[in-house]
C-alpha cells in the first residue's frame, strides 16, 4: 500500500468503519446494558420516573446549579468547557465540514479557523489541567490509576495532532495521519472504554434522580 492509498483509506473507508463501529458499538452496549438491568435488577424500572429523571439530568446540565459545582467552580468551569468544546470543535471545524461536504454533500455552519485554533488550545490546556490535578490533588491522586492518564491522553491526542497539523508543524503528513487515526481510535474506543460514560451518565442520573425525587421526595443536586 503506498502513502496515497493509505491516506485515502484512513480518510475514506476507515472513517466509515470508525463511525459504524462507534454507532453499532454504542447501540450494542446500550442495548446490552438495558438487558443486563432487566435481567439482574429489574426493580429499578419500577422506581424510574420520566419526570424526575429529566429533572435531575437538566439540573446537572445547568452550569453551577448543583451545589457540588458551586463548591468547585474552578474545576467545573474547566470540565464544562472541556466537555462542550470536545463536541463543538470537531463538529464545527471548517475542515471537517468540508470533508463531509465532499463525501456526503452535507454541510453546516462552521467556526472560523482562528477561533477553532484558540478553542483547541483551550481543550489541550484542559487536559493538561486534568493530568496535573491527578498528580497534585491528593484525594484525586489517591484513586488515580495509570489508565486514567492514558484515557486523558487518548482524548487529547486528536486535538494536539489537529493543532500541530493546522500549524503545519513537524512532518505535516505524519501528523495529519496521526490526527486522523487518533480521532478514529477515539471514536472506535468510545463504546468499549470509560469514554462510554457519556452514555451511561444520563442512565445513572435518571436512576439516582428517580430514587431521590420519586421515592424520597428530595433533590439530588
Amino acid at each position, binding site marked *: 500500500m503506498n502513502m496515497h492509498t493509505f491516506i485515502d483509506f484512513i480518510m475514506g473507508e476507515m472513517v466509515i468503519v470508525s463511525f459504524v463501529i462507534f454507532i453499532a458499538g454504542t447501540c450494542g452496549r446500550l442495548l446490552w*446494558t438495558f438487558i*443486563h*438491568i432487566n*435481567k*439482574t*435488577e429489574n*426493580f*429499578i424500572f*419500577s*422506581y424510574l420516573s420520566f419526570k424526575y429523571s429529566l429533572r*435531575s439530568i437538566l439540573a*446537572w446540565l445547568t452550569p453551577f446549579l*448543583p*451545589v*457540588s*459545582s458551586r*463548591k*468547585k467552580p474552578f*474545576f467545573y468551569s474547566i470540565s464544562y468547557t472541556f466537555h462542550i468544546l470536545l463536541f463543538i470543535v470537531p463538529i464545527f471545524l471548517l475542515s471537517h465540514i468540508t470533508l463531509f461536504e465532499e463525501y456526503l454533500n452535507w454541510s453546516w455552519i462552521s467556526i472560523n479557523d482562528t477561533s477553532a485554533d484558540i478553542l483547541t488550545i483551550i481543550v489541550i490546556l484542559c487536559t493538561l489541567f486534568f493530568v496535573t490535578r491527578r498528580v497534585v*490533588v*491528593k*484525594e*484525586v*491522586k*489517591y*484513586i*488515580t*490509576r495509570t489508565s*486514567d492518564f492514558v484515557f486523558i491522553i487518548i482524548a487529547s491526542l486528536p486535538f494536539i495532532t489537529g493543532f500541530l497539523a493546522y500549524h503545519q508543524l513537524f512532518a505535516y503528513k505524519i501528523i495529519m495521519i496521526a490526527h486522523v487515526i487518533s480521532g478514529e481510535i477515539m471514536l472506535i474506543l468510545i463504546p468499549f472504554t*470509560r469514554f*462510554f*460514560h457519556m452514555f*451511561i*451518565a444520563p*442512565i*445513572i*442520573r435518571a*436512576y*439516582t*434522580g428517580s430514587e*431521590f425525587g420519586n*421515592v*424520597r*421526595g*428530595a*433533590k*439530588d*443536586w
Partner: protein
Amino acid sequence: MQETSTKDSETDTKVIDEGVEKGLKGLTPEKIELVINQVLKNETGARLKLYIDTCMRCSLCADACSFFLSNDRAPEFSPAGKVKQTLHEMIRLKGKVSKDTLRNIVRIAHTECNVCKRCSMYCPFGIDIAYMILLVRRICHKLEITPLYIQDTVNSHAATMNQMWVKEDEWIDTLQWQEEDAREEFENLRIPLDKDGADIMYSVIAPEPKFQAGLIYQSAVIHHAADINWTMPSFPGWDNSNMAMFTGDYEISGRIAKAHYEAATKLHVKKIVMGECGHAFRSVFDVGNRWMGWAMPPVDVIHAIEFYHYLLTSGRIKIKDKFKETVTLHDPCNISRGRGLHDKARELVDMLCESFIEMTPNKEHNYCCGAGGGAINCGPPWKINRMVNNREKADQIKRTGAKVLIAPCHNCHSGLEDILHYYDQDMEVKFFGDLIFNAMDKTIYKGGE
C-alpha cells in the same frame, strides 16, 4: 474503651473489635475467596457494573463526606477512596483478600461511612457509594466478621424482633406503666394496645421502652390530646428499627420489615406513624420493604415530623407558649435526603419556637450526625474514632451559636450528644416531641372546632 479528656485528632486504625477478630480467626483463604466471589457474582448486577465502569475517579464526591473533611482531607476517607480500599480491593484481588486487609475493610465499611448518601449528591453521575459500602458490609456479614456490638443488635432483632433484647412482657409492662404515669396529664389517657381497626399504629424503636420510656409517655399525651384513634401492638413487630439492613443481613432485615407490616395489617390500621427516628424510617419505608418485594410500603407510613405537622396545622394540637431559647435544627439524612421532610420540619420549628438559626449546610445537604448507618451501634470500641471522624459536624453545630439543637431522630440524638460532649459544647439536644409536649395546650381536641 474509656473516653479520654485529651482530644484525639487521628482515627485509630488499630482498634480491636472482638466480633471481627473472632470472625477472622475462623476464616480460611478459600472461604474468603468463595464468599466474596459468590456475593459479587450472585448478588450484584447492572448497577454495580455501571458504577464501577463509569466512575471517572474525579473525587468530586470527596468534599461531600464529613469523614473526609473531619480528617483534614485525608484521601483514605474520601468516598471513592473508601471504595478503592474495600470493594475495589476485593474485585481486584478476585476475592483473594488477606485477613489483615479484611480487618481494614470492616473498619472502613462499618465505622468510616454512615451510608448517608450525601456523596451521591456531589458525584456528577450520581453514583451510589453507600450502596457499594453496604455491599461490602454484606460480604462481611457473610464472612461473619461484622463488628461485635452491631452484630449483637442484629441477633436481638432476629430473636426478639426488636433491637434491644426487650422481652415481650417488658414491652407491654412499660407501655402500661407509661400509660399509668401519663394519667397525671389526663386522667382518662390510654395507650390502647392491639386496638383492632384503629386508624393509626404508632411504632417506636426499642431504645424507647428500654431507656427512654418518657418519650412514650409524651407521645401518648400528644395522641390523647389530639384525640387520635391509635394503637400500639403488644406483640413483636412494634419495633421499627432495623440494624440488620446496616450489617447486610438482608434476610433478617426483611423479616423485621415483615413483622412490622404484618402487625399493621393484623390490626387493620390505615397508617403507621413512626416515632422520631431516621434509620427506622429508612428501613420501613425504603429498605426492608424492598427485600420483601413490597416496592412501596404496603401500609402507608409517616414519620413523626409529618404527623406532628398535621396535628399542629389541623389544630388538633394547639401551642400555648412557644419555646423561647434560640434553636437550630439538624436534618437527619434518612428523612431529609431520605424523604424530603426538611421543609415540614422548618414549618414545625416555626410553629413551636420563637427564634431559629439555620445550620449550614442544611436540608438535603446536611452532614450526617456521624452516628448513622449503624456507626454508633458498632459500640464502645469505636467511640473515639467516631468522635474524631465527626469533627466537621461539631464545627457545623458550633457555628450556629444556638443553645438548643433539635434532632428528630434517635440515632442523631445520641450521636450528637456524644460529639457535643466530646467537643465541650454546651448545648441541649431535643426531639420535636419534647418541644410539643412542653408547649402544647393540654386540653383534648374536640372535632369541628
